[in-house]
């Protein structure tokens, strides 16, 4: 009579389908993750427009300026004064002049002409236009000439 071996049989689960799915998920998240918009400030509620299209070719040199209001968690404005949000905190447009001056100096030390740099303005939909114009003027005073105004791409009515 044949006696069965007492060694417990080890059943290896097939990992291949799970690894396939996990790799597909990683590929999906890597593609969807947008690292380019890290300079965007969430407090800024951009205006929407159908014609606002992302640039065809990425710009080589750009400087982001986020202008908006301090908002609560529900998105309501808690301070009516518009601020420029930068790494150094919230500043008024006039107080931001020193930072623009510094950016122009940094560009020059890197042998970059400020005229070739694009100032990307992300301004809140309710910001007074005069503030945006003041910022453009301050940037011009520091040698910047190219500007881009950001807007959220509005979905087209089908």
């Amino acid at each position, binding site marked *: 009579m044949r006696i069965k071996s007492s060694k417990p049989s080890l059943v290896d689960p097939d*990992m291949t389908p799970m690894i396939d799915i996990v790799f597909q998920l990683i590929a999906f998240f890597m593609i969807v993750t947008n690292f380019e918009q890290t300079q965007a400030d969430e407090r800024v509620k951009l205006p929407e427009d159908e*014609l*606002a299209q992302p640039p065809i070719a990425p710009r080589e040199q750009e400087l982001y300026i986020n202008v908006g209001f301090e908002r609560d968690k529900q998105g309501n404005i808690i301070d009516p004064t518009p601020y420029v949000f930068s790494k150094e905190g919230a500043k008024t447009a006039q107080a931001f002049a020193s930072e623009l001056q510094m950016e122009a100096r940094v560009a020059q030390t890197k042998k970059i002409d400020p005229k070739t740099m694009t100032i990307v303005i992300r301004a809140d*939909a309710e910001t007074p236009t*005069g503030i945006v114009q003041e910022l453009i003027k301050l940037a011009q005073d520091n040698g910047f000439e*190219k500007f881009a105004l950001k*807007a959220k*791409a509005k979905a087209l009515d089908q």
Partner: protein
Amino acid sequence: MKLRHKGEVDKIEAQMAPMIDIVFQLLIFFMLTLKILAPEGDFNINMPIGQAQADEDSEPQLDIKVRLLANPDGTLQQVLLGTRQLGNDERVFDRLNGEIISIVGRPDSGDNDFEVEIDADYGLHYNNVIQAISACTGKIDPVTKLPVRYVEKIKFAKPRPQSGEAQ
């Protein structure tokens, strides 16, 4: 002498556990860093230094002036194309777009010398300016659903003083 079974092949199994650990860590990282943001577009404006002053002396021949007047609360009071009043209702920017097309002539040409100057009150909400810029630069083709741009040159007029809103 014990003979090895001929058909038996030694199977070396690769250790999957470390790879799965890393892969799951990567997956969790990408899931946590994912931010779903609406796509953003932009409107380019060129503001060469000293242009505002130069324009006062020698006015360009193909300049279109759009004046945006604001109410004290920052809402739109009136849109003026040159001296023509276009109103302030929700269709005003469509009318502005139509007027710009009639001035430019051929909307599909794209390479014309027209330049639009936006002159807005200090307190006007910025979304009105974006709508005006959009109405002046182009439109969405109703058939192809693609943007058609006919004025590329947009500039701002000299900033108006904060107190001089009501004009």
